[in-house]
């Protein structure tokens, strides 16, 4: 009896803790969502309910273009980074300690530099190489800072894979590629996917590096939002963020609670 009460209390305390963290994480987001319906440009005052920012958002060619650029760059850079990064992680894990340390050190550089340093140094490098700044340079820059996230996600999974299974497959006559995709790849897939997801997110959120590496007339949502700071951010930006957020949330709920029987396993 005592034990049960104690367990119950513990459960309640844990639930409370979870809820508090969720409130902390989502309070600013709820604020933005509320502001997107406010009939006032002010960030502090509620001006009555309106949907006009949503209307303005869909009508603005600038915002829609920026949205498209943002998504295309995020998707493409995450994809390339995932392919290059996964291949690199496999190679690195097979290396001797010294080259491994050196390469992992270089891998960490984009994560260690202040963004503004990465951004300006990339801009200087592009100019030195004679690559004209444009869509492609944003893409290259994003791939560059995304690769480390992929490698850091894949490496630990690779370490957990059992080498002997792969060797056994080879002994049984499987080609290295076939053996890799049949044996190793399924094991590291969760790492590959979370690397992809993280890369996608980082690309969505980046401003400074994009600012210095973008070409004329190309905007992502971040650069657009920052350019509005001087004259006041238009609430259509809040509206757009709300839509992105709700879209992802709905998709997340659908995929997570879809009726199909899912395999357990942790």
């Amino acid at each position, binding site marked *: 009896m005592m034990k049960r009460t104690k367990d119950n209390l513990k459960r309640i305390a844990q639930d409370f803790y979870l809820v508090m963290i969720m409130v902390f994480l989502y309070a600013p987001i709820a604020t933005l969502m509320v502001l997107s319906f406010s009939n006032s440009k002010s960030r502090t005052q509620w001006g009555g309910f309106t949907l006009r920012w949503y209307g303005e958002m869909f009508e603005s060619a600038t915002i829609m273009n920026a949205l498209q650029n943002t998504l295309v760059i995020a998707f493409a850079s995450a994809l390339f980074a995932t392919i290059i990064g996964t291949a690199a992680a496999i*190679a690195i894990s097979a290396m001797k300690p010294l080259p491994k340390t050196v390469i992992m050190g270089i891998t960490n550089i984009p994560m260690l530099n*202040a963004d503004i340093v990465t951004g300006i140094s990339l801009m200087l490098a592009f100019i030195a190489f004679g690559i004209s700044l444009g869509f492609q340079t944003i893409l290259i820059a994003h791939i560059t800072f995304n690769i480390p996230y992929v490698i850091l996600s894949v*490496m630990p999974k690779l*370490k957990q894979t059992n080498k002997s299974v792969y060797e056994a497959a080879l002994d049984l006559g499987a080609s290295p590629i076939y053996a890799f995709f049949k044996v190793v790849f399924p094991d590291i897939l969760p790492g590959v996917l979370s690397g992809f997801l993280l890369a996608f997110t980082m690309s969505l959120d980046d401003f400074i590096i994009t600012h210095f590496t973008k070409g004329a007339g190309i905007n992502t949502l971040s650069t657009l939002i920052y350019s509005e700071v001087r004259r006041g951010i238009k609430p259509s930006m809040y509206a757009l963020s709300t839509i992105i957020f709700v879209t992802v949330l709905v998709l997340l709920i659908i995929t997570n609670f879809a009726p199909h029987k899912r395999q357990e396993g942790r």
Partner: protein
Amino acid sequence: MSKKLLSGPYLVWMVGFTVIPLLLIVYYGLTDRTGAFTLANIISITTAEHAKALWLSLGLSFVSTLICLVLAYPLAMILRKRGIGKGSFVVFIFILPMWMNFLLRTLAWQTLLERNGVINGILSSLHLPTQSLINTPGAIVLGMVYNFLPFMVLPIYNVLCKIDDNTINAAQDLGANFWQTLVLIWFPLSVPGIISGITMVFVPALTTFVISNLLGGSKILLIGNVIEQEFTRGSNWHLGSGLSLVLMVFILASMALIAKYDKNGEGSAF
């Protein structure tokens, strides 16, 4: 042999877009406006303002990292216990806020913390005294914790999920109480996760400048602000590069210190 070839594209990429740009920064950091070699940019870290800014940044990032760790560890344990971590649902819950633009999120915190903001509105409607929350070091720490908490939760959660339930049960069967299990079993087994969490929180917290501008009212000068201002307003890239190099040394040193405890070479990021 063939495996090593796989790193080819990556190596080419890294040399082109990481090493060469880095060398450009080194070049700028070690020259002055006329292009002559100098160590002045590096040495300038010892001037009172720069040293103080660096010291403050180290302090605030350390506190933020610690708070993140203290918040994240029990959270990861609860999540693991509840089995909420099926699929990547849990990953999404923590990554989802980042799909709202960083600047917008931080501005939203301003709306919450301001003198006439949401939190003080709630307090005064409960007849509690209002607090001055914004433009304090505390607000900067809050901003850092908010923005970087997911980077602490995810690696720890990931590594906890790999711990075998049997290990825990065995310890408890042998009479270990909760704290003993925590210190003797949980912590040692989750070191890689903790380390990558610390790295991924500490480093961005050390270099940030937007958070201290927006939530600290720019009254507190961090090393990130100094570097940013040298690159933009001050337009002295040489000094900015020199200070970045110093900052990198600090980051590498603290990482090396941490890595001593990471026996496996590298932590599991995700």
